[in-house]
């Protein structure tokens, strides 16, 4: 009996090795980019995997902007990527007219279904790129494909993107007709290169197969893909990390002005890592994420500013 168990164990080991070999196309060892927060990096097994799919979801519909903010914070943190490329959906002319008419009449407009479709692609930092130019604040080439669905909370606002370390001039927005084209644009971006990361929305059309394809493309290109996921989308995916984000009352400087965006972050899944919950600040001067001591701890923010 014991012998059987042993043989079974050995056979399982062999199979596991084979699966591990087949599951990964990459010849490189996985490259990770630490967030610089030891607590989080420990849960992530050292940091975010560069050539992989990362999904960020809001805890509820109204937290979608926070989720997008955190996504951009992850993608834009300076320690990792120097260039990004985004594309995003501009409003349909008819939709704008409809909203304008409704707002003139003072009507309440029902929020459209929460969907933001976009892809952000940016080139990875390369060796020798750490020159003066690369260190300047706005050095990110971004590609942002989107479908023509009007997102619930509006469109990314170019001047606002600067606070997440993105240079609007280096963002290429790709207007796609449907989710399929969006996926195509993401994959082509990964395949052809010239970009540091892909940012997009996880759409209903993206089943496990599509997400595996994207994950493999990201792996081969060694380029991260950040996807914004609907708060109510629980479909399985091939992403290596999954985050869930809500708002938290933001930090203030010593004069009482808004300083940093603050997020309540839950790491729901990390491949080979652990889950965890934190409250984080996005420091838009230093372009990095920081752990804030406690929710609503205004004093902590003041101390840092001082």
């Amino acid at each position: 009996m014991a012998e059987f168990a042993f043989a079974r164990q050995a056979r399982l080991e062999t199979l596991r090795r084979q699966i591990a070999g087949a599951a990964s196309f990459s010849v490189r060892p996985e490259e990770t980019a630490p967030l610089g927060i030891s607590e989080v990096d420990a849960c992530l097994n050292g940091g975010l995997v560069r050539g992989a799919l990362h999904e960020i979801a809001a805890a509820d519909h109204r937290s979608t902007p926070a989720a997008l903010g955190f996504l951009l914070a992850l993608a834009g943190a300076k320690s990792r990527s120097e260039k990004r490329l985004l594309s995003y959906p501009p409003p349909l002319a008819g939709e704008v007219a409809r909203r304008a008419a409704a707002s003139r009449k003072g009507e309440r407009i029902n929020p459209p279904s929460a969907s933001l479709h976009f892809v952000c692609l940016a080139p990875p930092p390369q060796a020798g790129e750490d020159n003066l130019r690369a260190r300047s604040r706005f050095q990110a080439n971004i590609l942002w494909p989107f479908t023509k669905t009007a997102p619930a909370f509006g469109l990314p606002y170019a001047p606002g993107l600067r606070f997440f370390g993105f240079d609007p001039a280096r963002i290429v927005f790709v207007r796609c007709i449907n989710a399929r084209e969006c996926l195509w644009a993401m994959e082509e971006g990964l395949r052809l290169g010239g970009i540091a990361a892909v940012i997009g929305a996880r759409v209903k059309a993206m089943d496990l197969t599509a997400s595996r394809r994207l994950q493999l493309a990201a792996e081969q290109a060694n380029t991260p893909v950040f996807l914004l996921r609907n708060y109510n989308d629980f479909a399985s995916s091939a992403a290596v990390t999954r985050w869930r984000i809500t708002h938290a009352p933001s930090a203030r400087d010593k004069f009482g002005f808004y300083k940093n965006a603050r997020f309540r972050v839950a790491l729901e899944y990390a491949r080979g890592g652990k889950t965890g919950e934190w409250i984080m600040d996005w420091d838009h001067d230093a372009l990095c994420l920081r752990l804030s001591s406690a929710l609503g701890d205004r004093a902590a923010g003041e101390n840092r500013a001082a």
Partner: protein
Amino acid sequence: MPFALVMMTTGGWHLAAVSPHAAALGLNAGELMADARARVPSLQTRPAQPEKDRAALTKLARWCTRFSPYVAPWPEADERAGSSGLTLDITACDHLFGGEASMLHAVIANLSRLGFTARGAIAGSIGAAHALAKHSGQAETIVPDDKLADAISPLPVSALRIPDKTAVTLKHLGLKTIAHLLPLPRAPLAQRFGKLLNDRLDQALGRAGESFTPLLPHAPYRARAVLAEPISAQEHILKLTNKLAADLAPALERDGKGARALHLTLFRVDGETAELSIRLARPSRDANHIVKLFALKLDALAEDFDAGFGFEAAQLDVTEADRMQPQQAAIAADPQRDLDEKLSLLIDHLGSRLGLENVLRAHPHNTHIPERAFVMKPAAQPSAWDEGDAPMRPLLMLPCAEPAEVTAMVPEGPPRRFRWRGVQYEVASAEGPERIRPEWWRERESRVRDYYTVEDEDGRRFWLYRDGAYGEGARWFVHGVYA
């Protein structure tokens, strides 16, 4: 077996076209089918499909671009009795085939190889060539310029591309051939038959100019290659394209131009053509860049791309060219440049499928009105945002400011609570106002806006503004959402 194509017209089924056998039995196009059947009981008929004929003719015209770049099918109005044809402008093309005679021979021979019975004529005017090809009855006719009048004289007046009615009237008057018309005074002719007859006569004699619209648009730069052996492998096609693109480069460089749009025509052995078009975001004459785009295009076609028995000729046209500054290659390796090149290839590639107008970049717009702070332009144009300190702006902007019901502590003060999209938000703190005045030179009606950044008890931040001052019917709007 006698055979005819029939067509339903007013008065029943008529013969549209007849086979040589049927013609020998005395049948003519235009007869009633019932009459024809009565005379030749063994007549076989099929319905004519004029639109398919037209499509086939267009296809044939494309095939004929191997002889001259300027080819057009005859206008539909000139097509009568099932015969149709093509006009080729062979100016400066004939010497490539060893002179006019051998070129005409080559054209006819190639057409007969494809299974067409063709008659051809070379003349100094479109009118004369058309008339001779259609009515001379000879397979090959070449007329020197000084013999034009003599050559067309014996042809019937209907050869002049005039309406049937005019031709019939002329015949009734005893004016049966062009020779009868030539000595007549022109003014009474015009009075009786309209200007068209005189114009056609002049055009046939080469006294009046005539132009035609070629099937393929004029391409300012064109390279072509005819191959000894047909090719079909993708890598060979790309190699050939690379050679053609490289051939185009010196001419483009001489004119200080770069290609913005290119069209590749591949001629199949069996007379079909395969066509590929690419557009470039920025003018380029770099053969490698161009070939990469064609390669991506071919990859996308994959199964749909039918090489048949191979391609025997290829032609690369620059359909759109734009001014381009000479570029000096960097001698030192520059990773930034490499990335930029990759990015421009990506932009071209995405643009070739989605349309270059759908690959966009935000350009700053010099205004302080928030919704006009940037404009989206095609990504090929580089934009620059200055790095100076900008005022705090939200991450997301609503396509249109949405009205909100706001309660404020003091009339001119920040909101205390507000209701937006049916949800009540208690404001924990507010920052502002940031006053933004309308651009009076642009719009007179709009009012001063006071923007506030407010945060609710859960930490959601909004960008609200009050449109107008209190006392003049101020209204509140939510304009943006912070992360």
